[in-house]
Structures are given as structure tokens and as C-alpha cells.
């Protein structure tokens, strides 16, 4: 039985997957996804499921994660697919992988900054040791064609004046701040990638994700859009914490999955790409949009330490490189993204209750 919420995801994959025939290159290939049971892993599996189903090209997916049982519980319709295979392991202690793997998407590690401040050592280990272990094993796989390393926009440091962050715009880093553990370990992971690419000739591509939104993203996550949607589903009020003029951008989940799979087949080895949306939106506008899509009336509250901010924080990628090289563009506007996310979460909630 196909549940209504799964149908949303399937439809979204179909919308985002503009050029499905381009994936015929992946016929009978095996893709390993580390962090395979997380948000990105689920969406990649959904997209591959759609591609396999529609074009019958028999892609195998190895999902590597620490909690397979949870995955099976959350997405039984994916877990039961025959093309999905599981490897239950902590990426930090990886020492062996099936040697029929052709592609690797390295998405292990949580971007949740609450975890980072609570357990900085684990964060550092996951990105440093985890990336090294993975690349070490990868260097012994003969038929490996490409590795997509998912880094983070946080490697750019503090953005002070750029409207859009290009792949070369680096800002300053604060020293001696434990919050840096995520950004710094993502940076060392990128340096590891350069080593393995340069000295061991591993075919590595780096993607630097910005913000995403969509089904499977936990609304408890501490990011503005998730909180706003959760507040809206709970009936409001929507609370903006800090400066409402802060600018962000959001790439819808199925577009994200499509971009990543496109990078698998089209990205230039050794290149670095921003992965995100280049359409900026302030938190004020975002809150209003979410409010307008809710059936119940609600307030938008703003809570901030200052009346006037000296500068506005902006976190919007320049996406020229990825759109040109991978020939991709967003298929979901922010309004549609919000709409689909709310709808899915409402259905998901009903089922859970």
C-alpha cells in the first residue's frame, strides 16, 4: 500500500528528476552512501528508487549507517526494496567494504550544531577519522569511479560582505571556540580529500551543502525554517529568534538529491561545488510565507537582543558553477517547498499519532 506521504516524495522525485535518461550510465552500478540512513541518504535512496522503478536500470545502493533498525522503522517502504543493502557500521571504524562498489557518496555526520557543542570530540572524529577511514578503504577498491564528498558551507568561515558566497570566498575564523569543531573538522576532511586525490589518485569531487528543506528533515532541528514550520503546524505563534533581516536560502530536498546524483555522473574530478539554492530570503519573509500557508491564523513574534543590527548575516551560495557544469536548476520555489514540507509533516504526524 502506498501511503499518501510516500506519494508526495515519489511525485517530488519525478518533478526534480528532469533528465532521467542521463542516469543510464549508472546501470548495474553500485553506490555506497555513508550516513545512508540520514536525511540525505533517505532522499538519495528515494531518488534512486524512482530512477530504478521508472527506467529499470538496476542500481544497487549500499547504505552505511549506525542505526539500521531505526531506518527500517522510519522508511519501511525503502528498507524492503531489493536494491537496498545495509552496512551497519560507524564510519570512524570502517576497514572493509564490498569491492563491487563503483561510486561513493560520503554523507556521514550530523550537521546539527547542538550535537557539536555537546560532543565536540565525536564531531571531530566523525569527519576526520571517518573521512580518512573511508578514503583509505576506497583506495583499495579497484572499480571505483567517483567519490562525492559532502563538506559544508561552514568551511567558508564568517561571511561579512558577500551577497553570494562563491567557491573561493573565505572569511575569518574565530580561534579557540569549541563551536568551530564542525567547521574545522570539515576543513581537515577537505584537506584529506586533496591528499587522497593527489597522492592516491582517488576520483574525488567536493560538494559544499547550504540549507535544505523538505520531508524527512526533522522539525526538531535547530534551524530557522524547521522551527517556523513546526511552530506553524502546532498552530503558532511563529517565533523569529535574532535578527529578522538575516538572509538564508533553501534548496528543496528532491532537487538536492537530483543535484547530488547529477554530480555523480557529471562533476569534474577535483572540483568543488556549492550545493544549495541561490534565491535569498530573509527570516521575516520566510515566517510570513509559512504563516500564509497555514490554515489557522497565527502571530509572528520577533525576539532579538538588539534593536538595530550593524550587519546582516547572509548565507546564500553562488550556484553558477553547479548549475553550469551539471546543467541543473531548481524545480521547486520556496513557496512550493514550504507547502510540500508542511503537507508531508501533517500526514506523517497523523500516522504517528
Amino acid at each position, binding site marked *: 500500500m502506498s501511503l499518501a506521504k510516500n506519494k508526495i516524495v515519489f511525485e517530488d522525485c519525478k518533478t526534480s528528476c528532469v533528465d532521467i535518461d542521463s542516469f543510464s550510465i549508472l546501470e548495474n552500478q553500485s553506490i555506497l552512501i555513508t550516513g545512508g540512513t540520514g536525511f540525505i541518504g533517505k532522499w538519495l535512496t528515494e531518488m534512486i528508487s524512482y530512477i530504478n522503478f521508472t527506467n529499470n536500470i538496476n542500481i544497487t545502493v549500499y547504505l552505511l549507517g549506525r542505526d539500521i533498525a531505526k531506518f527500517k522503522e522510519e522508511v519501511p517502504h525503502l528498507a524492503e526494496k531489493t536494491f537496498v543493502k545495509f552496512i551497519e557500521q560507524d564510519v570512524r571504524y570502517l576497514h572493509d567494504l564490498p569491492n563491487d562498489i563503483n561510486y561513493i557518496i560520503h554523507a556521514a555526520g550530523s550537521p546539527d550544531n547542538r550535537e557539536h557543542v555537546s560532543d565536540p570530540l565525536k564531531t571531530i572524529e566523525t569527519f576526520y577519522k571517518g573521512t580518512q577511514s573511508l578514503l583509505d578503504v576506497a583506495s583499495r577498491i579497484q572499480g571505483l569511479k567517483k567519490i562525492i564528498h559532502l563538506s559544508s558551507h561552514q568551511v567558508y568561515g564568517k561571511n561579512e560582505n558577500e551577497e553570494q558566497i562563491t567557491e573561493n570566498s573565505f572569511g575569518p575564523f574565530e580561534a579557540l571556540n569549541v563551536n568551530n569543531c564542525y567547521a574545522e573538522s570539515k576543513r581537515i576532511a577537505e584537506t584529506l580529500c*586533496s591528499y587522497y586525490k*593527489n*597522492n592516491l*589518485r582517488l576520483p574525488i569531487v567536493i560538494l559544499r551543502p547550504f540549507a535544505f528543506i523538505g520531508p524527512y528533515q526533522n522539525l526538531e532541528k535547530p534551524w530557522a525554517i524547521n522551527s517556523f514550520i513546526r511552530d506553524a503546524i502546532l498552530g503558532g505563534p511563529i517565533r523569529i529568534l535574532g535578527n529578522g533581516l538575516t538572509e538564508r536560502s533553501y534548496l528543496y530536498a528532491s532537487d538536492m538529491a537530483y543535484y547530488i546524483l547529477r554530480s555523480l555522473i557529471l562533476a569534474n574530478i*577535483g572540483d568543488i561545488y556549492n550545493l544549495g539554492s541561490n534565491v535569498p530570503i530573509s527570516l521575516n519573509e520566510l515566517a510570513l510565507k509559512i504563516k500564509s500557508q497555514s490554515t489557522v491564523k497565527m502571530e509572528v513574534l520577533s525576539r532579538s537582543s538588539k534593536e538595530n543590527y550593524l550587519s546582516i548575516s547572509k548565507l546564500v551560495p553562488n550556484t553558477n558553477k553547479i548549475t553550469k557544469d551539471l546543467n541543473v536548476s531548481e524545480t521547486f520555489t520556496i513557496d512550493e517547498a514550504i507547502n510540500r514540507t508542511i503537507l508531508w509533516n501533517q500526514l506523517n504526524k497523523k500516522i504517528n499519532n
Partner: protein
Amino acid sequence: MIKQILISDPTLRDGNHACAHQLSAEQIAIYCNAADNAGVPIIEVGHGNGLGASSLQVGLSKEDDKTILETARKHLNKSKLGIHVIPGFATIKRDLVNAIDIGVDVIRVASHCTEADITQRHLGYVRERGKEAYGVLMMSHMASASVLVEEAQKMELYGAEGIIIMDSAGAYLPSDVQEKISALVNGLKVPVGFHAHNNLGMAIANSITAIEAGAKILDGTARGFGAGAGNAQLEVLIAVLEKMGYITGVDLYKILDASDIAEKKIMSTVPTIKSDSIVSGLSGVFSGFAKHVTRISNEYEVDPRDVYRELGKRRIVGGQEDIIIEVVMDLIRNRK
């Protein structure tokens, strides 16, 4: 702004490829005298693949390294004496120690364009002995600009005072040279140089493109005497640079004279772009393979163009001359 270009002349090194490494001590003496007199800053001598490379694999030298270097040393006054050194062929203990003892001034340590880390020891040793050390990336058409920059940066860290990229297959078009040289100039602190081959008739044009993109060192040989279709023709290069207002320190008339002497005294044939060389360039095959491909193809009656195509397809690098035989055997087998 002074537009100074450093000229290095490997007529007596790359030219050895063109005559199966048969340059004699007498010929070396004659050309050294002439080029020294013309004010060529660096004269490079040796077996085609450099120090310690006289071998059945690449070809045996008529003269051993010691004779070549001592002869050149004796006949050079103003010009510096240079050599080409590929780790894997030349070792420090067996070859480099003696060469520096004989009095070599400039040592260019070379590797395939993606393998710069094999040059660390050799570059370090040259610097230890207080000699001029350069890094050379051969077959540079086989790597992207960003890879070349990474490899060149390693050489820079190992102590290279300049990095020369070689178009060893004569495969570049000016736009390739522009892209790669500017990336290197951008990414390096030390000067960048270019060494051309003429398979596609681009040697002079590519050399000029290189300096316009920021290169400061150029290689050229008398009459283009060098592997395959030959190198950038030195006397033409000097004339063109002079016309463009660059300073090389080389006397035009005297280098014209030197090249006339070279043609008469050291070349059995003056390099031209033969039909096979064009296919070699298109296929991206190491120019030093030309003599071997011609000989073995004749011997086993296969089309040398097919051999070049196949070598290119297999992405064979300089030093793998033995594969030519295997490719020829394969072609014969497939024909049957």
C-alpha cells in the same frame, strides 16, 4: 618593465633523441663553442632522457655521461652547463654526484607530470650542493591545469627555483598553453618555463603564448633539433623575441651562425614534421618514441600510425619504450 626571458638550449640533449643518442664528443665540442660564443645562457647536454638514461630501453649513448659532461665543460665559458635528470633512471649515488663533481651548473629534475614526489630527494641533493635546481613536468598535456599546479607546488617546496612544463608530445594548441601557464604563474612563487615540440607546427606559437601568459623561461634548439618533429627552433625564437622587444642576451647573428654550424656538423637530417609525427602529436605520444616506433614498425611491417594511436589510447608515458614492442605484437596478433 624589463621583459627578460631566460633561454635554455637542449640541442645537445633533446637532439640526441633525433640521432639515436649518437652525438659524439667532437660534435658536442663544436656546438658548445658556437652556442657559448652566441651568449646562450644555459646549454643542456646528455642522453635524450638525461643523466643515467643510456639504456637498451631508450637507446645506448655513443658517449658515456662522463665524456659528454667533461667535453661540454671544457668548451663552455660564459654559458652554464645544464643536465636533465629523471629519478627512476638516474640515481644520486650512481649519477648525480659525479655530474656535479664534473662541474654541472644547472640541474633540471624531471618527472612525469603527475609524479612530482619522486623528485624530492634529487632536488634536495642539488640544493645541498649549491647548484641551480629546476623542476620539470614532462608530458604535461596529460594532466589538467589544477593537477599541474599541485605537482609544481610540490617541486617548489622541494627546492626548485623554477618549474618548466614540457609539451613532450607536441600535443598542445596555444589555448592549452595559455590555460596551463597562467594557472602555474598564478599558483607558484618561482618562475615558470615552457619546452615545446613541433608535431602540430605550434612550437614557436606555443612558446610565444607561454611568455605572454607569464612564462619566463623558454627552451629552444638549433634548427629545432630534438625528439620527434623537433623542438621550438632556437634561432627563430630568438629573432621573434627580439622583434617583440624581449631581452634574451643571445646575439642573433651568432646564434644564426651557430645553427648553421649545427646543421652542417651535428645533424644527419634536419627535423621536419613527418606524417607520422602529426599522428604522434594528435595521439599525445612521447616524442622520444619516434625512432623506436619507426624502426619496430618497419621491422614487423605494421603501420606506425596505428602504433601511435594505440600508444596514445593506453596513455603510455615517457620511459615506457618497451611497450612499443608489445603494442606492435598486439597489432600483428589482431591482424591474424
